[in-house]
């Protein structure tokens, strides 16, 4: 059995490039790294199916000369999955960009808190580590929030006023546009 040296070398080169890219701080490069790594793995899976042969259609070629159809099915699935993940990552990167105005992986809140703590030599840092996930909602649309605070605050009936609240926020969105 011969080893497909060229393909294996290609896989090696792609892995090297991919690992280099994925360790970058810029998210776009990380995304490219994911893509390159994904393609390298796909080539590896194809190589795992053995030497290339005829198209695996019954009647077109003797069975012994056919290439393995299974790995191609696997790779097809893997490609689709990679596509989905890539689009999601792109969306995340875009969101990071709209929030942060930068493409870099942002600093960890925990890191920052720990560093401050060490600098002050304190046991506990008073900074609230944000685990609510909601801290910056106000930042993204301050107008909107004020609007809701004025009308939701004194309203004891909560649920009753939900629908109008939504329509006003929707309207403010339109205005901004």
């Amino acid at each position: 059995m011969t080893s497909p040296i060229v393909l294996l070398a290609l896989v090696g080169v792609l892995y090297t490039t991919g690992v280099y890219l994925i360790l970058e701080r810029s998210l776009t490069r990380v995304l490219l790294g994911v893509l390159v790594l994904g393609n390298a793995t796909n080539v590896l899976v194809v190589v795992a199916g053995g030497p290339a042969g005829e198209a695996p259609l019954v009647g077109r070629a003797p069975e012994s000369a056919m290439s393995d159809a299974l790995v191609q099915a696997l790779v097809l699935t893997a490609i689709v999955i990679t596509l989905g993940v890539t689009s999601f990552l792109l969306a995340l990167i875009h969101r990071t960009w709209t929030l942060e105005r930068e493409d870099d992986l942002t600093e960890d809140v925990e890191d920052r808190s720990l560093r401050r703590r060490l600098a002050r030599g304190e046991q506990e840092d008073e900074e609230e580590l944000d685990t609510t996930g909601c801290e910056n909602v106000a930042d993204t649309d301050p107008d909107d929030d004020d609007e809701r605070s004025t009308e939701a605050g004194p309203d004891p009936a909560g649920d009753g006023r939900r629908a109008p609240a939504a329509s006003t926020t929707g309207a403010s969105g339109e205005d901004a546009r």
Partner: protein
Amino acid sequence: MNPGSSLLATIIPLPVLLPLLGAGLTLVLARRPTLQRAVSVTVLSAVVVIAALLLVAAVQSGPIVITVGSWPVPLGITLVVDPLSALMLLTSMSVTLAVLVYAIGQGVYDRDETTPITIFHPTYLVLAAGVANAFLSGDLFNLYVGFEVLLMASYVLLTLGGSRSRVRAGVTYVVVNVVSSLIFLVGIALVYAAVGTLNLAQISVRMGDVSPGTALTIHLVLLTAFGIKAAVFPLSAWLPDSYPTAAAPVTAVFAGLLTKVGVYSIIRMETLVFPDSEATQTILLVAAGLTMLVGALGAVAQADIKRVLSFTLVSHIGYMIFGIALASPLGVAGAVFYVVHHITVQATLFCVVGLIEGVGGSTSVTRLGGLAKASPLLAILWFVPAINLGGIPPLSGFVGKLGLLQAGVADGSTLAWVLVVVAVLTSLLTLYAVTKVWVLAFWRPADQIPVAEVDEPEEPEDPDEEPLDEDTSHPDDVGDSRIGLPRAPTPRSGVLTGVRPGTAQTLADREANTGAEVDWPVARLAPGDSSPVFTGRFLGVAGNRVSRSLPRVMAGATAALVTLGLALTVVAGPLYAVADQAAADLVARTPYVQAVFAQTVDDRVGR
């Protein structure tokens, strides 16, 4: 095969199929929230019932197999239910159902019913389908697909709302998991190149003929992939970083399920495919010890309850790996029991943290106090699972740990003894971490919360606000971000108090910094007043009129989970018997392999 089991075999695909169909249906019903909730609850309830049926059948008559589409075994997709997978399925789906009810109570997915942030239900059901598929899968590639399905759903759930912290955590989480999936795919390629099949039963038969070096390479590649997913020590750093930012029910279901699917895969690999691998058993033992210690020490160091729990989650993965690495029936049985216990208790604790956040307005022990007085029910809900996690007898955590320690002692090697000591130490450290939370957040009188907190909340967020100032100078872009993306679903408060949470940083709130304004996530002292004011969203409108009631649905779901945890203690005997049987089957390997190959013969005869 008898007719009864073939009838049962036909329901095997349902735990995967029903949630997927349900996901489609809930997507169609996006504008009918009530129906949507009804569909999800019905679907998951049905899956729980089916899982219970499958467990009974698998325990009574051994593994049940179905070949999807009646393709003969090595070609088609096989789904296998053995006692292990049925037990995992039942536990995980019960917890998933309880957390779904909790989430409905919180309304986290749907800030108000007219804005279509309705992706929560479909995504949640897809997650359940992925988990079920991973547990039932009888071949390696289908396991990979199951993983991808659940991961894809988890990406969406983790970043639900797209706030800054969640996007930041989401990027790390997605990249780490994509890399682990790629490593898994490399493992699949290597397995296929080595043995020419991806059917687990067939792999296990053929792997014996592969040269030891190659087998070890493949084994290590797969272990790395599953180790990342299960958060085993050197590969666990992503977990405490990403889990705490998600919404409480999302974190609860992640903590309960996702890492356990990784643990399940490791159990399968170690017992079925690579049963006698001394080298990796040593590696796993060392990794298990380090996972326990590093996780427990991390938990002790944290002040935020969600982070404490994320670290105990990592730490206790070590117990399961310990049991697996011993590779004896005792050890595997201990690991299986521990997985069941840990899925339940960890999900419960994260649900309770969601309630704590609602009552106290914070999840940091430096800002909480007097919760036991404010809400005795909440105190009970925290206390029982917390000491269960710490391993106080007679609760299920104690039973699981005892089983693992016995297995370690029975093994008798030096490393196993070291691990026994580490396990006891970890148990103590866990107990210390959870009682620290108990003492500070629940027992400490509220007036002893450090007063320095009063003016603190305004300062630290400043760095985060600088980008906002930049943003306002680009009005167009701000508009873009506002229109183009769904806003974060701030948890709904109107249900309970009519007070809106999640506005900690708005200017209006700062001006009204009197303690009367309900604010999040700050439990602060009112200026000029020494008595603390609880400002959580479940409590009184003006802060001084404290209402003692927890939201009923959320508290009910959490109480159900606590009860489930206690029930595990009550039925520990029979449950441990099931775990023993599962472990015996796993270590023997033959029941699984024979059940799968019996299927091939059946099919060929039928044709």
